[in-house]
């Protein structure tokens, strides 16, 4: 099945408007990019879009704790992960980098503390 999508390349400030042709979920053509990075971006963004997730979780004995995904996680899991994180309450002390939620929503990515609390 063929499909065409338009996305903005974010590899540089130029922001090329890319027209991406997908056949059965695979990128078969990229147009509108001024350089090779646009093509790489289109392939990543259309086939397996990921995002860093950063937010805060509640601390029973202190101010909210900033947390982040250790690495980018699938874009469509973001709101599901937020729901899970809303229910998380930790107790200080927490060391920077410690795992707050392991393998969040089965993404294979851990949520870790951004700083100490």
């Amino acid at each position, binding site marked *: 099945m063929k499909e065409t999508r338009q996305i*903005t390349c974010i590899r540089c400030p*130029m*922001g090329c408007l890319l027209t991406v042709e997908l056949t059965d979920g695979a990128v078969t053509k990229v147009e509108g990019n001024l350089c090779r990075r646009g093509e790489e971006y289109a392939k990543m963004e259309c086939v397996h879009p990921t995002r860093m997730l950063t*937010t*805060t979780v509640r601390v029973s004995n202190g101010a909210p704790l900033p947390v982040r995904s250790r690495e980018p996680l699938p874009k469509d899991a973001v709101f599901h992960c937020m729901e899970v994180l809303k229910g998380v309450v930790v107790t200080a002390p927490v060391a*920077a980098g410690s795992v707050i939620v392991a393998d969040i929503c089965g993404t294979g990515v851990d949520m870790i503390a951004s700083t100490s609390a």
Partner: protein
Amino acid sequence: MKRENRTIHVSLVVVGGGPAGLAAAIRCREQGIEDLLILERGPRLGGILRQCVHSGFGVHKFNEELTGPEYADRYIDRVRELGIPYRCDTMVTDISADHVVTCVSEEHGLTRIKAGAVILAMGCRERSRGAVRIPGTRPAGVYTAGTAQLFVNLKGYMPGKRVVVLGSGDIGLIMARRMRLEGAEVKAVLELMPYSGGLKRNIVQCLEDFDIPLLLSHTVTEIHGENRLTGVTIARVDENLRPIEETKEFIDCDTLLLSVGLIPENELARAAGVELDPVTGGAVVDEHRETSVGGIFSCGNVLHVHDLVDYVSEEAEIAGESAALYLKGELPRRQTVAARAGNGVRYVVPQRISGGGEELRLFFRPDQVCRGAMISVSSGGELLRVRNRRIVTPGEMESIVLKEEELRRVHGDITIEVGLKS
């Protein structure tokens, strides 16, 4: 309460414990200056980075995508490692031209500090509703984006549920996403100019990802509501940025976030008699980041507003190193020439250069979006350097390096221009 009603003596006072102050203090200590003191108004070191829980910091400096707190912690850890003294919850109330810094804190009371040198690293504050003069009532629910960020990220409070953001600078974009992630409905982000002042990455990942509309050439013309905000009237603006009556439209919302610019906090610099640049709102400095008052240096957002903290750190390192040289009596003293903004450029930092040294990076901000841009640097009518760029935008600071042989050809004031590539 301990009263310290006396004058203490240190080599260097750094005013501000945010990214600029931390990096400046670290560099100065690494250059051998032992007795320095960081004064921070807030309860902890780290400045605005503490509330910037999103990632994207440090890509340039550490080749990693860090969150704000992670970026700050790298410097805070180093400050502790080096044993650099600091005082939090301490408000500086005056700086004199002869380096007497007056500060107050609950712990120490009123303290006067006679310093060998001073580094100004106070950062910015946000422009508020008053600064952009939005007509209407004065209900609760109108916040600057940074205040909302503090509520959400540091205090754990949501300022509202149905949000309109005015201003598409990075803080506005980041807060649009933050509010959406926390369950608010973000109705739109409005931008007065025909282009966004934010990074492309943020437009895609903060707005497009969440289908939040970005309305360019739009503004808020009226605020409604008695006790709590009930909505805003928005309108498209014409080429003179005046609202077009027929395009007025009401948007129902309980929260309006303002991301309408930053103002360097230079009241203390002014008190010390430091010359300010009317365009940047920061001090006029030379390449050592020394202000017009000898021994007072400036760096970070109090000098000019940066898009990336990475460049704040680099600038602060220059200031820290220069302050160390100044204290050792080794800061070179040469005649300076002015570095000026020509066509297509809003400002240049540093504003004065001596032309000595091996190479020199000049930072400047384009005054409009220009595709196929040619950046040229000239001095005394002679072209020193030309560089082509695919695109330049006011939202992304540019820089150009002058090499030793180009610096030798500096005879008279330097001008940077941005034009179309011919």
